[in-house]
């Protein structure tokens, strides 16, 4: 079974500053990794995902994440945040190569990114 830990429940930052949201996972097999964003009063939408290949993944809205297998991490970064990036961010993991009904991703508890002017 896999698990996900988002190390920070809340990250306050000033506009135009860089930000890193941390995500660590635990799994005995290869994994796929996802970051989702949830804006206030909305559902989740995909920011980016890692399936295989290059460990640096670029997503929407200027976000990127790096898969580090040795540290079992998938941290999300943005070099300069905007007020509009204020949202809840969720890291998720699922087992790679699993077929059938076992394609159940596990979500972290979320990190609230608060961007101050």
């Amino acid at each position: 079974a896999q698990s996900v830990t988002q190390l920070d429940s809340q990250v306050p930052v000033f506009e135009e500053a860089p930000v890193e949201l941390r995500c660590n996972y635990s799994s005995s097999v290869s994994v796929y990794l996802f970051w989702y964003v949830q804006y206030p009063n909305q559902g989740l939408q995909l920011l980016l995902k890692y399936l295989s290949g290059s460990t640096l993944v670029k997503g929407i809205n200027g976000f990127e994440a790096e898969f580090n297998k040795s540290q079992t991490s998938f941290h999300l970064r943005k070099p300069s945040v905007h007020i509009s990036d204020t949202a809840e961010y969720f890291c998720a993991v699922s087992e790679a190569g699993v077929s059938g009904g076992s394609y159940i991703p596990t979500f972290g508890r979320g990190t609230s990114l608060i961007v101050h002017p």
Partner: protein
Amino acid sequence: NAGVTQTPKFRVLKTGQSMTLLCAQDMNHEYMYWYRQDPGMGLRLIHYSVGEGTTAKGEVPDGYNVSRLKKQNFLLGLESAAPSQTSVYFCASRRYPSTDTQYFGPGTRLTVL
């Protein structure tokens, strides 16, 4: 293409009342999921379905039932609502067998008094 829709958006129930939440998707996805979201708890899986006519329990299934009579619809039922079921409920769908992402609905905010 509406994606994933949920009905209703808001609902207030009294303890012991029943209700059904409807999730519909128009993307011909095989997999569908019901989650609840509570502060500090992230998303917890209630039930899921891998195809029409099949359902399975997730992490927190107690007090809920589901049905998937049609491929595009996934219903979540509360037979006797309890205050502990006050939450925001999200439905999601996903293609099979690819590594595609989950597509989420806008959520249903349920309050049980």
